[in-house]
């Protein structure tokens, strides 16, 4: 991964630190006075294709050095941010660009009243930046101001380094900045975990419900019990970001449920959990069941339990589950929630699918229950009133499209992972068609769940990727999607479609996907299968839902 670091001060320490990093390559111009030229110059590193992201870290005082009055400073800041905004708006850049907000170190000797000037200047910059990030999907705020506040400006700035080496920030501060950069960059590539599995006693509340009773557990707005309530508030925020929550607790079901349903200080309620395992079975068994009921990989679970023995048993028996240590000091529970977020679930932004995720997975559990009850499968599928909306990707689909390639493991024929940049590249090519489909039914909207990337060379087409979220697997939706695409390609002059199955640890469910649809195997080695379909000899497909072209 390659990124460009631009600054108006010396950040040599950060640059050197990244030079030791094997996965991240940091490019920075010689001299720190040239950052604006680099942005303007269309032949500079800022515009290089191989660069994934750009970080612009700006020191407020240096930006307005030489300006005396607040009016002059305001004018200067406005002119700088405007020129950045113009450049970014003009270019169709898919690189992620992080632009710092500002922090004025209050070094001037001033009366109390005039100290507010700095805040006003910081806000002028921020409000312009805020407009930009709302208009441009690829632009983010680099929260320098918050980093300074968190550490404290006395420790963040180093007078000595400034006077001796033009480096404004302390070594500690530069470590904080580089950690933040690394966190953001990793989030572009790393697979997020999907589900947080939580214990109850001494985890979501203090004490043991079976011993201390409903009124004896610690859970309150203030004082001791607030440790747990605050922890729950942060966990609830994770849920709002698309993280699924499940309970895995050794308890009497009714005792625990009474607290979840009735305790006035419970933040997390029954509807917040996709799955609840409150029983006396071994936790390893429950955890495996959670993964299988939700139809997600067991390696996408994170297990939180205050009991070291339970943690150890899970760690030793299910290696794929992540089991972080629980804080020894429960005053640190809120910090712990932040750590969990950064380690396993960090994301730069959310898709709409994230917000509704819990409901979607719960709907799915309902669907499966009804499926089990329904003897005639065909009438069950028909009764779902499935609607499939399909179209070629539009700019607003790019983020979700990349996410589908990154996160889907089971129904994924070739398991090729693509970044947003790569998907945009495909989308703008004449030889590539990318189809995206969303699915809804009587239980609710599943969102955009399927992606097909087709490479076209005159009369031949290749299915580069065929992906569908496991949420809607097993309902023959894929049959209608492929049918539509085949017909669309045929209309565009394609005669032969080639396709491929590449085995991974997880995509067994689609081992015979193309075989079932009448594709002929033309080559087979090491489990990889190459197929071909002559579009003039295409067979009829099952139809259970209504397909709508959008």
């Amino acid at each position, binding site marked *: 991964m390659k990124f460009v670091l631009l600054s108006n001060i010396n950040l040599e*320490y950060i640059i*050197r630190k990244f030079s030791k990093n094997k996965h991240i390559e940091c490019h920075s111009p010689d001299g720190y006075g040239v950052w604006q030229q680099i942005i303007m110059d269309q032949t500079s590193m800022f515009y290089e294709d191989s660069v994934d992201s750009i970080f612009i870290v700006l020191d407020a005082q240096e930006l307005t050095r030489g300006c005396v009055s607040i009016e002059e400073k305001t004018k200067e800041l406005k002119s700088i941010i405007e020129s950045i905004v113009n450049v970014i708006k003009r270019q169709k850049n898919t690189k992620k660009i992080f632009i710092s907000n500002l922090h004025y170190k209050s070094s001037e000797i001033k009366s109390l009243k005039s100290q507010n000037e700095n805040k006003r200047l910081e806000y002028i910059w921020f409000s312009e930046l805020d407009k930009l990030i709302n208009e441009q999907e690829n632009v983010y705020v680099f929260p320098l101001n918050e980093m300074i506040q968190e550490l404290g400006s006395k*420790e963040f700035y180093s007078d*000595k380094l400034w006077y001796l080496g033009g480096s404004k920030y*302390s*070594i500690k501060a530069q470590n904080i900045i580089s950690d933040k950069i690394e966190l953001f960059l990793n989030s572009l590539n790393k697979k997020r975990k999907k589900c947080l599995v939580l214990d109850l006693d001494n985890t979501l509340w203090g004490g043991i419900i079976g011993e201390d009773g409903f009124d004896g557990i610690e859970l309150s707005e203030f004082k001791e019990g607030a440790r747990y309530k605050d922890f729950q508030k942060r966990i609830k925020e994770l849920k709002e970001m698309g993280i699924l929550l499940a309970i895995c607790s050794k308890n009497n079901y009714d005792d625990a449920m009474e607290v979840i349903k009735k305790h006035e200080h419970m933040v997390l309620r029954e509807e917040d959990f996709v799955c609840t395992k409150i029983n006396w079975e071994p936790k390893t068994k429950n955890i495996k069941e959670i993964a299988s009921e939700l139809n997600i990989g067991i390696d996408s679970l994170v297990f939180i339990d205050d009991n070291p023995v339970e943690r150890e048993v899970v760690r030793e028996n299910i290696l794929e589950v992540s089991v972080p240590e629980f804080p020894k000091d429960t005053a640190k529970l809120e910090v712990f929630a932040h750590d969990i977020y950064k380690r396993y679930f960090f994301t730069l932004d959310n898709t709409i699918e994230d917000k509704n995720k819990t409901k979607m997975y719960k709907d799915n559990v309902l669907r499966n229950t009804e499926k089990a009850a329904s003897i005639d499968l065909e009438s069950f599928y028909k009764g779902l009133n499935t609607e499939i909306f399909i179209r070629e990707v539009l700019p607003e689909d790019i983020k979700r499209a990349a996410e589908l390639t990154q996160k889907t493991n089971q129904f994924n024929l070739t398991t090729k992972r693509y970044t947003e940049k790569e998907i945009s590249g495909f989308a703008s090519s004449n030889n590539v068609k990318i189809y995206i489909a969303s699915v809804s039914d009587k239980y609710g909207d599943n969102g955009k769940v399927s992606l097909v990337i087709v490479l076209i060379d005159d009369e031949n087409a290749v299915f580069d990727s065929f992906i569908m979220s496991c949420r809607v697997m097993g309902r023959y939706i894929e049959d209608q999607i492929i049918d539509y695409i085949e017909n669309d390609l045929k209309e565009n002059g394609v005669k032969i479609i080639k396709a491929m199955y590449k085995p991974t640890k997880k995509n067994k469910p689609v081992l015979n996907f193309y075989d079932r649809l009448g594709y002929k195997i033309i080559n087979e080695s090491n489990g990889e299968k190459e197929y071909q379909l002559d579009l003039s000899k295409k067979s009829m497909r099952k139809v259970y839902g209504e397909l709508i072209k959008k």
Partner: protein
Amino acid sequence: MDKRVKLTEIASNIFNIRKEEIDFGAKKESIESWDSFAHLALLSTVEEEMGVVIPFEEVEAIDSLDKLFEKIKGQ
């Protein structure tokens, strides 16, 4: 932690030299990675992580880890 051990750790990290090979007697000029930037990073890290002060006026004169250790050992 022992100040000498801590100083060795910091120097090893900044100079990119294994801890066992850190030589307190070696002069600044004889260590390739001890350039002017590393000099500042070393002194600042020592100040920040060990809670000691190296006055501005003395920064220049420190030309070996021994000398640096002399300055901070009593603080």
